[in-house]
C-alpha cells in the first residue's frame, strides 16, 4: 500500500469508473447504481483502482464488489478497502459479514472467513430460494463475525 492510494466513499459520479473496474474483472454491475453509496473506493491519481461495498440485511451484511485492478494487486489495497467496508458494517449494527466467491475462498479464509452452507448464508442475507439460485453451485459462501461488532 503506497501513500498515493487514497480510500474514499464513492459518489454517484464514480458510477462509470466503478462499473468499468467491476466489468473488467468479471463481477456483476447491474445493481451498482442502486448501491453506489455503500461503496468505498481506492484512488490513485484520481483513477479508481479498487472497490468494496456492503449490502445490509438486518444484522447480516454482504460484502460485495471487492475488486482491485490487476495492475494494482499485491499491495494490500483490498485489505484496506475491506476494513473500511467492515467499519461501515459496524455502524450499521452488523454482527456477521457474509460473502460469495468463486475465485478467492483461500484469500478470505486467511482473513478469518469460514465456509458456511448455502442454507445458512441464504437464511441470513436473502430468501433461501433466491439465494440458492444466485449463488452458483461452485461458489463458496463464507462468513465472519464482525470485528468490534456487538456480536
Amino acid at each position: 500500500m503506497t501513500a498515493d492510494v487514497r480510500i474514499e466513499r464513492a459518489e454517484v459520479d464514480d458510477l462509470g469508473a466503478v462499473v468499468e473496474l467491476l466489468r473488467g474483472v468479471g463481477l456483476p454491475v447491474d445493481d451498482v447504481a442502486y448501491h453506489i453509496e455503500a461503496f468505498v473506493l481506492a484512488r490513485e491519481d484520481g483513477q479508481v483502482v479498487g472497490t468494496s461495498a456492503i449490502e445490509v440485511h438486518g444484522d447480516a451484511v454482504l460484502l460485495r464488489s471487492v475488486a482491485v485492478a490487476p495492475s494494482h494487486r499485491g499491495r494490500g489495497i483490498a485489505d484496506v478497502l475491506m476494513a473500511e467496508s467492515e467499519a461501515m458494517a459496524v455502524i450499521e449494527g452488523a454482527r456477521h459479514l457474509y460473502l460469495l466467491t468463486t475465485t478467492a475462498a483461500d484469500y478470505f479464509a486467511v482473513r478469518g472467513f469460514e465456509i458456511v452452507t448455502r442454507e445458512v448464508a441464504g437464511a441470513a442475507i436473502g430468501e433461501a430460494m433466491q439465494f440458492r439460485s444466485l449463488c452458483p453451485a461452485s461458489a463458496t459462501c463464507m462468513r465472519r463475525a464482525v470485528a468490534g461488532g456487538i456480536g
Partner: protein
Amino acid sequence: MRDVTTAGGDSTIDSLRTTVRARYGAVATRVAESGSTAGASCCGPASGSSGCCGSSTESWDPITANLYDEGQAAGVPAEALLASLGCGNPTALADLQPGEVVLDLGSGGGIDVLLSAKRVGPTGKAYGLDMTDEMLALANENKARAGATNVEFLRGHIESIPLPSNTVDVIISNCVVNLSGDKRAVLAESFRVLKPGGRFAVSDVVVRGAVPAEVQRNMELWVGCVAGALEEQEFIGLLREVGFEGVSIEPTRIYKAEDAAAFLSGSGLDIAQFAADIDGRFMGAFVRATKPGAAGAPRVATAARALETLGTPAVDGAAACCGPDCCS
C-alpha cells in the same frame, strides 16, 4: 419470418422471447428483492496466484480484459454475467458527444444508459429499451439512485423499437442483439430510428464459421449469449442489406475452450466433446455501422415530443423492494 441463425430451427421468435423474458425477468426480480446479484467477491492475489478475478495480465484494459476468468466462468450464472457484463463495454466505445440522443437496446439494469446519459449531458438524452418489467423496475431504481434526469426507460421489443424514425444519434447495446430471434428486424428498426448520419455501435458475440447444430438449438446457450450469435459475414451482410454503410466488426475478445466449457455447463451437452469444436469460434466484438446522410445538429426535444404524440408511455419506476431490511 426468416430465422437467420438456425438452419432448420423450429424455434419461433415468440417462444424465444418468452424464454428470454422468463430468464431475465427472474434475474431482475432477484436483484431487486435481495439487492444482490451473483456477488462473487474478489480481491488481490491469493498466495501463488497472479490474480483471483478477471484478467491475469499485468496491465488491465477494460475492452480486452478477460471478462470471465476461469474461476468466475465456472460459477457465475450465465444470465448474471450477461445481464451485467454482456460481451463488451459499449459506452466506452461509442464515442458519445454532449447533446446526443442515445438508445440502448436491451438495457437491463440500465447501467449503460446511466453512463451514456452522463456523457451526453443535460442537453442530450439516453433511452433504454427492455422487454422485462423486472429489469425496467431495477433500471428505474438505479436511475433514481443516480439522480439522472435525462434518462427514460421504455418497455418494448428490440424488433419493434417504440421510438419515431430519425430520432436517435447513437444506438448502443451490450450482448443483446444475439438474443433476438429476428436479427434483420432489429437491424432494420435500428436503421429506422437512427438519424441520417447516426451510428450503430454495438457490442455482441459473433461467430466465425459453423457451430454444431446441438449448440445452436440449445436454449440455455441462447440465453447464455452464444447460440444466437450471428456469423460474422452474415452480420455484415445484414447490416448492409438494411441500408447501413461503413460496416465493421472489430473483435475485442476471442473465447477460448475454457470459456466454451462455461457456456456449455448446464446445457446437458458433453462439454469435452463440444469445447474443442467451438474453441476460437466465438468472439466478443464491437460492431459499427452508420446510417447514410449528413449528421444534423442533435435535437433532443424531437424524440420526446414525438413520443408524446405516439402516446408511448414511459415506464414508471415501480419501486420494487425486497425484504424488510433492504430499504432501511
